[in-house]
């Protein structure tokens, strides 16, 4: 019998990471750089997570610009490349755009998967593939025990990089018979058919866009209106605009604000019965196909029994600012599920945590926090002398601040210790006198710097003016920042 040469056999580890998608790879990379010993296990047989299968129509939503104002491999370039994982060595940076054929500024699914696989191979990130996490408990001394298909892992902390990957259905009578987004057939199989898509968010519009050239008619329906402000400002416009424009101009596509009351299977096709929300009135439709583009949930298995609470109608774990289920629980999340730490959500603007460009930075901050909690010495950055030019440079170029608006901040203490931290942690927890700066956006899409000064435990907020070219290094901002300090 061949010897099992996979890394990380069952046993005792300080930390176990579960998952080999971008969240798991990034977390493992960051833990390894800090010298935190850990095992990585994955039920898959190769890296990439969700990107091995989705999106169905193969084109991602987030940009990577092979040529940009900053050089690939630099920290400043990360802002222009939303899909690659981040690393210290330039050879491990910007790996997704390296595979892009430039037919779009967003990569294809395959280009994304190749970028992630290259990262896992080059760094390398050793993963025990084919090892499925099945159950969780605590042993008598409080350590976590993860039962897997290969045996038991014991650890002080676990980092769950599970993605938001389990098909989720809205609670509509009859929906149990409806194919989910993941079961969508090839577009050509919908030729000449009338298709009802439940859902008007990313996956709903992705399906609508993919079927438009084939289907006779596409009708989307869900209770809440399409978020036009999001369409205008987010990279999801790539998928949203065509079906939405078609609906707006009366081109045959409909995007209904509709509470679906029931779905009936007919001899040939389906019947959709519901009521309008923003425009009241009964709706009764017969269609050939229905697709539930109703989203996904995090596969938490039995973690609820260990105290993991949820938000978003049970789909996402509720997390602390450092992405732990509860302070001191040792149950951390990375990847898409980090959206469970909502942050300040100023003006209703959420962080980019559901996407790679947001959660790759969450992973780095989480790894430092986890390392420190295990007693591992975490290297500190230090700002010598006047912090003002440094903070203005960070506000202008730091990719962490630009992707995670009013969510991650650059904090510098009076002693000059500098760190990227969750803004919610900075403003809510006690600490030494310090300043934190963040990039923020209001409801109109205006982007501006914000300064938070902590002095004797009191937090004072000061918002600085925007700049036409988003460059905050000029004399006006310098003076404003000095005044704030």
């Amino acid at each position, binding site marked *: 019998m061949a010897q099992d040469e996979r890394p990380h056999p069952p046993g005792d580890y300080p930390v176990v990471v579960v998952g080999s998608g971008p969240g798991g790879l990034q977390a493992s990379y960051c833990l390894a750089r800090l010298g935190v010993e850990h095992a990585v296990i994955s039920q898959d047989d190769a890296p990439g997570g969700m990107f091995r299968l989705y999106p169905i129509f193969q084109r991602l939503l987030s940009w990577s610009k092979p040529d940009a104002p900053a050089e690939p491999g630099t920290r400043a370039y990360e802002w222009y490349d939303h899909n690659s994982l981040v690393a210290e060595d330039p050879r491990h940076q910007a790996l997704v755009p390296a595979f892009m054929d430039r037919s779009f500024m967003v990569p294809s699914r395959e280009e994304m998967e190749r970028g992630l696989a290259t990262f896992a191979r080059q760094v390398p990130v050793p993963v025990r593939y084919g090892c499925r996490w099945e159950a969780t408990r605590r042993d008598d001394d409080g350590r976590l025990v993860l039962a897997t298909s290969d045996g038991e892992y014991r650890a002080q902390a676990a980092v769950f990089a599970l993605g938001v990957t389990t098909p989720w259905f809205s609670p509509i009578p009859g929906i149990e018979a409806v194919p989910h987004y993941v079961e969508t057939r090839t577009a050509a199989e919908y030729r000449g058919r009338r298709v009802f898509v439940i859902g008007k968010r990313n996956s709903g519009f992705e399906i609508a866009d993919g079927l438009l050239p084939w289907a006779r008619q596409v009708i989307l329906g869900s209770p809440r209106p399409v978020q036009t402000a999001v369409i205008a400002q987010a990279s999801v416009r790539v998928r949203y605009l065509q079906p939405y424009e078609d609906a707006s101009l009366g081109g045959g596509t409909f995007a209904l604000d509709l*509470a679906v009351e029931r779905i009936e299977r007919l001899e040939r096709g389906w019947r959709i019965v519901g009521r*309008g929300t923003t425009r009241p009135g009964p709706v009764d439709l017969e269609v050939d196909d229905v697709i539930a583009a109703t989203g996904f949930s995090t596969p938490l298995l039995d973690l609820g029994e260990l105290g993991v609470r949820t938000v978003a*109608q049970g*789909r996402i774990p509720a997390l*602390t600012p450092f992405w732990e289920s509860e302070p001191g629980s040792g149950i951390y999340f990375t990847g898409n599920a980090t959206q469970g730490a*909502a942050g300040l*959500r100023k003006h209703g603007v959420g962080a980019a945590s559901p996407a790679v460009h947001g959660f790759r930075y969450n992973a780095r901050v989480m790894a430092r926090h986890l390392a420190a909690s295990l007693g591992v010495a975490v290297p500190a950055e230090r700002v010598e002398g006047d912090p003002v030019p440094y903070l203005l440079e960070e506000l202008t170029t730091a990719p962490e601040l630009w992707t995670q608006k009013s969510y991650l901040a650059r904090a510098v203490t009076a002693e000059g210790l500098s760190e990227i931290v969750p803004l919610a942690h900075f403003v809510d927890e006690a600490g030494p006198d310090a300043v934190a700066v963040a990039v*923020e956006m209001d409801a109109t899409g205006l982007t501006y710097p914000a300064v938070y000064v902590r002095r004797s435990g009191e*937090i004072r*907020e000061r918002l600085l003016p925007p700049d036409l070219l988003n460059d905050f290094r000029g004399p006006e901002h310098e003076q404003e920042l000095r005044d704030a300090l």
Partner: protein
Amino acid sequence: MSMTERDELVRSLAGLALFADLGDPDLEAIADPEWERRYGEGERVLRRGLSGGGLFVILGGEAAVEIPDGAPRLLQRGDFFGEVSTLLQCKPTADVVARSGLHALEIPGPQLEEFLLAYPQVTHRMLQTMARRIRDLLE
């Protein structure tokens, strides 16, 4: 789990006086998963002196309004807070802190006006509550 929890959110909203006049389609529209929040004991929900907050409606648990040098005021299921700073677009003058596991719905500030115009029955009920608060202050 998800089907039950989604039903629970709609049912939870339906049980509140604020939303008592709304039918199921409206409640489903309001039960936006992106508006659902949970806070652990001691977590700040509304932050004194920080801009950009929203209106919070408590679905479960307790919170306390903490004003410097004043006695904290307890809030429970059905109570709402953050409306003054949101409507007047100013910074809150008090912290609101979760007293136990707090379950809440946050209507983001920029969407509150549209929300209140879309659901005038909710606006009316909110005005009644605010009028009672003024009466209590004057008595």
